[in-house]
């Protein structure tokens, strides 16, 4: 169907050929990037399976050779295995025979993978090593003589690890991981992943009712932090005017939202007014220890949230640490897999402190709930209301990093990059 008086961006049909970005203007974002199936198909090909490094696992999840984890690149199921002291493999969770998604356990340890349907067998690197009755039985049946095991392997991904974090890419052309991250993101990454050995403390999983890109935007959007999160201002974890920055790479796809807690900060009446109710006067924590930052990082920031395109968030919120792994589930949902961790050698007290501060984030976090709800409310808007667009005009002269919370520069730089890659 062509455009009409109400629909002016081609979204009547939702087919990618018909969609067009409003006025080619980066400060306007059309709903259809969040709702079209065709867009998601192209994102899979050009982003997740394109020239990107995707998070797949932490090395600490795979302590021994033969340990595996069922994981995802975009929404494509993969298996991550440890195949040596410092060797990891990532390959598609799909049998080369008929297509079975054969690995069904979340994690485990094996000598080999046997596809249940016909017991085609793969070693831990993902290579096909046995086809039962390949030569037939009693001279009958079996594979053609020229059948070559080597030609029937699940698709392999290239792997790159840095300080305990495992990434995968399908493309031969993806630049080296460090280059891909860029020096700005790498610096922040290396604060958390400095080479200290990680200790996994547990997992959360939730299905958010929003398009996967909304999660990136949320963390590239410092503007919402002190407004949506009443908790942050009320308990003086973060307030406008406090030291903070949005640190971007040159390409504009990654970002780190950084802030430094300032217990001396004062919240004037003007600010309270400006914040339209986002600060509740006169509240104090009963457990004051809760927001205490135990210094442990070589960084001026007490909080950094890094979005690493396209599927990783690194959370350093005071002393609660974790990664979040994004798995798109259709245009309207994403699964978030959280891995919370500390470091080997943490005292019991420190682990407890991390657990306590874990209440801030996650599917039931004081801040986490706010974001999950906001993302759902956004997607509800896109799905239910008349096709429209969003406005991202804050901090208009910038693109990418910025040192004010009142900015959408980093969202715009993301979409400049996105439009190039997606050719839309």
């Amino acid at each position: 169907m062509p455009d009409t008086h109400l629909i002016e961006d081609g979204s009547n049909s939702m087919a990618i050929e018909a969609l067009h970005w409003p006025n080619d203007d980066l400060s306007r974002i059309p709903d259809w990037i969040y709702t079209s199936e065709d867009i998601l198909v192209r994102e899979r090909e050009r982003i997740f399976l394109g020239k990107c490094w995707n998070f797949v696992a932490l090395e600490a999840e795979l302590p021994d050779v033969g340990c595996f984890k069922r994981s995802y690149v975009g929404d494509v199921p993969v298996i991550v295995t440890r195949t040596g002291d410092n060797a990891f493999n990532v390959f598609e969770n799909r049998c080369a025979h008929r297509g079975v998604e054969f690995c069904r356990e979340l994690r485990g340890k094996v000598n080999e993978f046997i596809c249940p349907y016909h017991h085609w067998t793969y070693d831990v690197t993902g290579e096909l090593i046995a086809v039962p009755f390949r030569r037939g039985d009693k001279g009958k049946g079996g594979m053609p003589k020229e059948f070559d095991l080597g030609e029937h392997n699940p698709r392999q991904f290239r792997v790159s690890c840095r300080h305990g974090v495992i990434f995968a890419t399908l493309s031969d052309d993806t630049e080296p991981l460090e280059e891909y991250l860029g020096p700005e993101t790498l610096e922040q990454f290396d604060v958390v992943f400095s080479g200290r050995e990680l200790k996994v403390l547990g997992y959360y999983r939730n299905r958010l009712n929003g398009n996967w890109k909304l999660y990136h935007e949320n963390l590239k959007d410092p503007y919402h932090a002190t407004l949506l999160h009443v908790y942050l201002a009320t308990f003086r974890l973060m307030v406008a005017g406090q030291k903070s920055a949005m640190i971007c790479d040159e390409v504009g796809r990654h970002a780190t939202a950084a802030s430094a807690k300032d217990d001396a900060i004062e919240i004037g009446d003007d600010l309270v007014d400006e914040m339209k109710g986002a600060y509740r006067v006169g509240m104090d924590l009963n457990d004051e220890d809760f927001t205490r930052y135990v210094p442990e990082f070589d960084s001026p920031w007490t909080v950094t949230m890094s979005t690493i395109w396209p599927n990783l968030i690194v959370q350093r919120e005071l002393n609660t640490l974790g990664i979040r792994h994004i798995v798109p589930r259709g245009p309207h949902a994403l699964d978030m897999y959280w891995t919370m961790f500390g470091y080997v050698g943490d005292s019991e007290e420190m682990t407890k402190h991390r657990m306590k501060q874990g209440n801030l984030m996650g599917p039931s976090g004081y801040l986490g709930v706010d974001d999950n709800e906001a993302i759902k409310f956004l997607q509800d808007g896109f799905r239910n209301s008349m096709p429209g667009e969003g406005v991202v005009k804050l901090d208009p002269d910038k693109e990418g990093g910025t040192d004010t919370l009142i900015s959408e520069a980093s969202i715009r730089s993301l979409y400049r990059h996105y439009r190039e890659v997606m050719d839309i």
Partner: protein
Amino acid sequence: MTKERGRPPVEKFSEDERRALRFKIEEFNTEYSATLDDQDIHRWPSFFTNDAFYRVTAKENFDQGLPVGLVWLEGRAMFLDRVAAIENTMVFAPRYLRHYVTNVDVLGFNDAQEICAKANYLIVETLMEDSTKIFQAGIYQDIFVYDESGCLKLKFRDCIYDSLLIPNDMVFPV
């Protein structure tokens, strides 16, 4: 760390003791559930001792002995702070929740002469514009003690959920 706290029962109860205790614990769970179903959240900490431990965690964590919780509270102050956040700072759409607590099992005393029990819970959720859905299925692993006035209080509640994939988020404790 959690494992220590949730000390297993070492001494079984007689049938009479179990009968008496199950009745009390069922009453406790009924009132506890009603408090949450009514979203009367500020009453919720009163079901716990001052030094109580409360956690909500996925079965995958429990089975591997991993310590994290979606909610992880120790001591009254932390309970009060969560209540304050729900009441004052957290932003969320209105919803109804309803608890079904069944299969209460009175296990015995642990080595501190505290009462160990468990129960299956099922929580269903209704958003204003949608049908009722299963929110969470799980098991309570509990340690009860009596307070000075003879009322049961939870000293320890581990809520271990099967529903690995939380639907959007979890606003209220379970």
